[in-house]
């Protein structure tokens, strides 16, 4: 009898244990931060906290190196092997949503209160993804350079006009102190071109596509404003203000620090390295205003639910958990990116009031414009990149932009308007 009781107790005990262990539904998650130990550690701690905080969901992370992440996701989508939680780059999200790789994220509005708008990925009126951080671009300069050249220090409220900006480049060139007045970052190819340079086009009044319909690039990329932008862009190289597409990547990384360039158009992620490189008086200036306001690119990595995930509510629960200010601040302190809320920014060492990179938070708040929210962006971005490289290398501005428009329009047409 005693043996029987013991066996029954053991059976109940093991069954109960198994019941506890299997109560949590596993949510696999793919993340682009493979190779970034700090980033991975922070994410793993968020996941551990989430798994321990509730009994419904158990998130497990598989990290990928960023350079191959998108290809891995597309291949997995083809093979029907997507995870539940996807990490997605902001401008790519509409394409993945349109292709069915992602589904709407059933997250509460309250969870998104106070977040930078550019960290919320929306498509067709629904939230698909949310980011814990943002990135921003600024014009790097030395205060000593501005003083020596007699230049006004531009502010968020009073950025340089286009004329002031060109006068600053001319003054830097005339000083003979620099190899080039401006380093736009031509050595960085790929997404850097549309991310960093399309804001100039937008400031001129143009755009990569017509955002009112997303059905054409006609007029936006080859209208008068775009032509003016193209002429200005080409003049940077023909006038000798900036190194061309053959820029040495090493110069891109250290040229400003070494004093080869008076100004550098660069992201907040390079801020700490610049300070560590000994540029104590670096100032992060807003983009110049070419007539339609100062604009910088926006939209970084975000979390969402894959199209095949049977538990989007579980994904939403995880994302809501991850959006706590303490985690946003931890990511910012760890990898230098901009936290997505003011409260979190105040908790960081770089973006709090008086922090070395605090101007970037203001830039994101005031000037950020997400790249065209369209599935066709992934193609348009590559076309735009090639057009800008060609123009920098001396191609005819009008012909190049017309050809780019034709290519973008053909792609939109081939894909039935991309669901807009």
């Amino acid at each position: 009898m005693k043996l029987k009781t013991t066996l029954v107790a053991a059976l109940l005990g093991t069954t109960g244990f198994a019941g506890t262990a299997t109560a949590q539904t596993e949510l696999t998650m793919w993340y682009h931060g493979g190779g970034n130990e700090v980033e991975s550690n922070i994410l793993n701690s968020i996941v551990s906290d989430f798994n321990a905080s509730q009994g419904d969901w158990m998130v497990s992370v598989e990290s990928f190196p960023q350079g191959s992440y998108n290809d891995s996701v597309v291949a997995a989508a083809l093979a029907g092997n997507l995870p539940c939680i996807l990490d997605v780059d902001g401008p790519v999200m509409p394409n993945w949503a349109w292709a069915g790789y992602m589904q709407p994220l059933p997250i509460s509005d309250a969870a998104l209160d106070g977040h930078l708008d550019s960290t919320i990925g929306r498509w067709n009126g629904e939230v698909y993804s949310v980011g814990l951080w943002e990135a921003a671009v600024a014009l790097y300069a030395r205060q000593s350079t501005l003083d020596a050249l007699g230049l006004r220090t531009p502010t968020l409220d009073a950025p340089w006009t286009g004329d002031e900006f060109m006068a600053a480049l001319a003054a830097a060139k005339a000083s003979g102190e620099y190899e080039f007045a401006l380093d736009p970052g031509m050595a960085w190819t790929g997404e850097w071109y549309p991310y960093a340079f399309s804001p100039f086009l937008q400031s001129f009044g143009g755009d990569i596509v017509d955002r009112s319909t997303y059905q054409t690039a006609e007029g936006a990329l080859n209208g008068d404003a775009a032509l003016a932008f193209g002429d200005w862009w080409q003049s940077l190289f023909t006038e000798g203000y900036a190194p061309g597409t053959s820029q040495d990547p090493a110069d891109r990384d250290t040229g400003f620090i070494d004093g080869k360039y008076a100004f550098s158009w660069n992201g907040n992620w390079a801020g700490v390295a610049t300070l560590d490189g000994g540029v104590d008086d670096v100032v992060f200036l807003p983009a110049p205003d070419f007539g339609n306001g100062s604009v910088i690119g926006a939209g970084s990595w975000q979390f969402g639910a894959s199209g095949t995930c049977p538990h989007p509510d579980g994904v939403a629960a995880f994302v809501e958990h991850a959006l706590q200010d303490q985690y946003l601040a931890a990511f910012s302190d760890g990898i230098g990116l901009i936290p997505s809320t003011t409260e979190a920014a105040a908790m960081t060492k770089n973006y709090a009031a008086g922090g070395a990179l605090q101007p970037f938070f203001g830039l994101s708040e005031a000037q950020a414009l997400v790249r065209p929210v369209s599935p066709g962006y992934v193609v348009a971005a590559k076309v735009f990149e090639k057009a800008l490289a060609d123009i920098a290398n001396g191609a005819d501005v009008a012909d190049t932009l017309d050809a780019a428009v034709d290519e973008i329009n053909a792609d939109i047409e081939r894909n039935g308007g991309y669901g807009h």
Partner: protein
Amino acid sequence: MAAITSDNHGLRLVTRYVVLTLIAIIFVFPLIFMVMSSFKPDLQLLRDTSGIRAFLPVGDISLNNYVAAFERAPVALFVFNSVLVTGVTVLLSLLLCSMAAFSFVFLQWRGRNVLLSIIIATLIVPFETIAIPLLLLVSKLPWIGFDGFTIGWLNSYRVQIIPWIADGLTIFLFVQFFKDLPRDLIEASRVEGASWWQIYTKVVMPLSGPVIATAAILKFLVMYNQYLWPLIVVQEETYRPVMVGLQYFFQLNTAWGEVMAYLTVITVPVLTFYLILQRAFIASIASTGVKG
């Protein structure tokens, strides 16, 4: 007259050595740059690229990049995966492709010439064109293993090995080599009562050292440098090879010193393998004219 001939000979010798040295420098300097840069901090590495210092162990030299590289990524695991996948694939490829070539050259069966032509024709098909269909295929293939019966080969070693075992180039190399073997030898073996299997194992393969070395090195390089295929069929870090692992080092701010340290580490197996087989490889190239 004898003096003039001697002078010409000396001049030609000097010229030859100068040219060969210059060519050697062109090929060796990237390796020297890689190794030297792997000991330097990033800022110094980038600044040194503009001069001869890039090729010298000068400045702030340390093993820090190697330590950081091993901390950033599971380097040993990636090297193990690549060596395992490459080693098994090379061995199976040598076995099966040589058997196929043996069949094409020495056995008489209907359609062998047509089939050989088709196999050789696959050499002109870029892998990229069949990558997606192959992905869809392997994602649906059945398998019986320790986990029982499963569907789909993704995230495994076998998906990196099996599709690469047989290839047109390796079969072609063996076919060409086997064709040059003396027929009398095969016929004499048949007369002596040897089976085809015995002829393959005891007669043909022992004579095929050079082509085995050539095929092994070419296959080794193809497999060790695999990027696209493992990228799309392997999502778990456990099975990732070295070339996909290289992407771990390209972050927002690329750690160039760690990149060089990682490249130095993953180059070691390739150089070791080549040094072991180089004599046979060179002999094979000299005799068959095959270029890698």
